[in-house]
């Protein structure tokens, strides 16, 4: 269409300016603070010029990592929690997404609605719901007790005492993360499975594959992009989560990297340390993101996020 090429750039300009200031400059501020210093009032003194950067705080933090300091402990725990929550999301989410896409029939619309619904319920409200349920006299506690899950968890040491779900149990935090984020995993997975051409599966069967082998050789590989997209989609925010662990546990044994950042940034007076930690977390997540993009691009299936 006609029109000067500058017109459209001009139209985009306010939005671009907004994102530049409130995203790029904001992020640069994190860098400037993390590589900055503190004044005698413990307030950050950002170093805006990269040539003046003071690597002290960041290197101190890295040092802490290498030598198994508290940041190492917390990071390791965070990775464990996230990995377990993602794995459980896959184990529960795949059959659900698979059923909805392949076998739901006339219920598909209704089930889809039920899958979408949690996305739009306030995360904190969903946590609040579980806190009530898991209280020692809560309905959830009773149910878990009567169906024997409580005994099971007690016997394998995942739970300290009967009804003690909110006593600061790692397992409660992992299950809460699972509950909080799994809807965001199922939807992209559903979309990926739904997009698979059924005739390809029929073709596999026609060529002599058993149902199981048709699944493992055709359906699963074709939904791989969806699995990956869903996993990244929930892993990224989980790495920055602090409220889940705080709400359902508040024990130091379940604090995640987000809790440390929150502690430094919002509660305490160590903003420079907090900024350095934020920087390291972002770098890690950026690397994760790039790895993901490279994998999907190589597979020729750049997943839509």
């Amino acid at each position: 269409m006609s029109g000067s090429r500058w017109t459209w750039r001009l139209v985009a300009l306010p939005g671009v300016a907004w994102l530049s200031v409130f995203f790029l400059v904001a992020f640069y501020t994190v860098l400037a603070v993390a590589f900055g210093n503190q004044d005698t009032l413990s307030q950050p003194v950002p170093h805006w010029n990269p040539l003046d950067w003071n690597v002290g705080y960041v290197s101190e933090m890295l040092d802490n990592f290498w030598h198994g300091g508290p940041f190492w402990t917390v990071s390791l725990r965070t990775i464990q929690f996230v990995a377990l929550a993602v794995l459980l999301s896959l184990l529960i989410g795949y059959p659900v997404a698979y059923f909805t896409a392949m076998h739901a029939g006339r219920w598909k619309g209704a089930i889809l609605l039920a899958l979408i619904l949690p996305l739009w319920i306030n995360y904190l409200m969903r946590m609040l719901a579980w806190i009530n349920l898991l209280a020692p006299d809560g309905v959830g506690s009773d149910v878990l007790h009567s169906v024997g899950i409580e005994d099971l968890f007690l016997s394998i040491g995942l739970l300290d005492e009967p009804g003690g779900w909110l006593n600061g149990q790692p397992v409660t935090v992992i299950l809460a993360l699972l509950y909080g984020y799994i809807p965001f995993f199922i939807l992209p997975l559903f979309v990926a499975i739904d997009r698979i051409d059924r005739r390809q599966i029929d073709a596999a069967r026609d060529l002599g594959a058993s149902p199981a082998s048709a699944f493992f050789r055709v359906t699963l590989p074709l939904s791989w992009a969806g699995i990956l997209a869903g996993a990244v989609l929930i892993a990224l925010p989980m790495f920055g989560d602090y409220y889940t662990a705080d709400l359902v546990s508040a024990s130091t044994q379940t604090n995640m990297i987000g809790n440390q950042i929150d502690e430094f940034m919002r509660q305490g007076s160590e903003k420079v340390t907090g900024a350095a930690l934020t920087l390291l977390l972002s770098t890690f997540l950026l690397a994760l993101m790039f790895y993901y993009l490279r994998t999907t691009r190589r597979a020729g299936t750049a997943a839509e996020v």
Partner: protein
Amino acid sequence: MVQKPTGPGGLPLPRTDNSVTWAITDENKPVKDGGSPEPGPLRVFNYADYIDPATLKKFQKEFSTKVEVATYNSADEAIAKLSSGAVDFDLIMGLSGSNIVDLIAHRLLAPLNHSYLPNLEKNVWAELADPFYDRGSHYTVPYVVWMDGIGWRNDKVKEDIAGMDVPWDIFWQAQAYRGKVGILDDRRDALSMPMQRDAMHKGVRPDLNTEDEDVVNKAQADLSELSGICNPKVAITDYQTLPEGKTVLHHSWSGDVLAAAFYYLPEGTPPDVLSFWGPDENGVVQNDFFCIGKGTKRPVLAHSFINFMLDEKNAYDNFVNFNGYVPPQKGIDADVLLKQDLIPKTLESAVVRPDQFASNQELLQLSVTGQRFWDDAWSKFKAG
């Protein structure tokens, strides 16, 4: 003469043996005498749930003005927000001696004019009407006092905690209450607790404002040990969780336990299931104060509010109807409360006595280096 450590901005750090008088400078003078209260609204910055709405209502009615209360959840948060310059208030309450140097260093306060505060001399404990951290009460006037102690549910915890040689030991013997134990989510209070315990075992007086890295780290190690013993929650919601039974043993501020009894008990739970113990000496006592924001446009109204809160009746009502933190008023002590059947005997020791206040210690501002030892230890504890 020993070189005393200095605090933020190179200012002196007040100690009981090193009292400080904060200068009143020409560029920041108190409001002149004889003014009348400005029209509102009075903008107040306070801890969440830290003043009785009824008291506020009364003030608003008496002065035909409005009060807007903004709240914060921790002193660190308040200092961070105030010193960022992002917020501005007429009156700040809830901060304590451990924040005074920050407040002065950041030039956040306006000096007081005592002609507007007749109740200060009339009602307040003598030692707090002229405290060592602010000689002459140039900038601050006390609001309430409290001490750190142990709050517990005597229907669930069977040990006679108050009768133990070192009651703090209960936390290290709390295997039975695993998951239902709480530690105050405040680095100074929490880390000073094992220091007190150590000192009590040794029969010495601890320095709870120590800047000795080894002492701080030892405290952190002791505290971290608790994770394995009773997996404590780190929280300041004991005034809600103790009455609900979500926790049964808590490292508590005395005021929170009284507040729990006054206000937060569920229907059907009698107040005498709550017990409190606090040390008579060598423990932690603290006091909060009122101060006036430097940028205030309503200095006389702000003074009026302070004076109103220092009125014995108002202080008493705010204390027993809501807050639970003891105002350092000459006319209010535990005996009065017991007689009026307002608190059960089990909570008698949660009402801080002047003699207790004198022989315990306040947690005070540290030097920047000292602060870092405590911060690092705390982050290590928090990392689990």
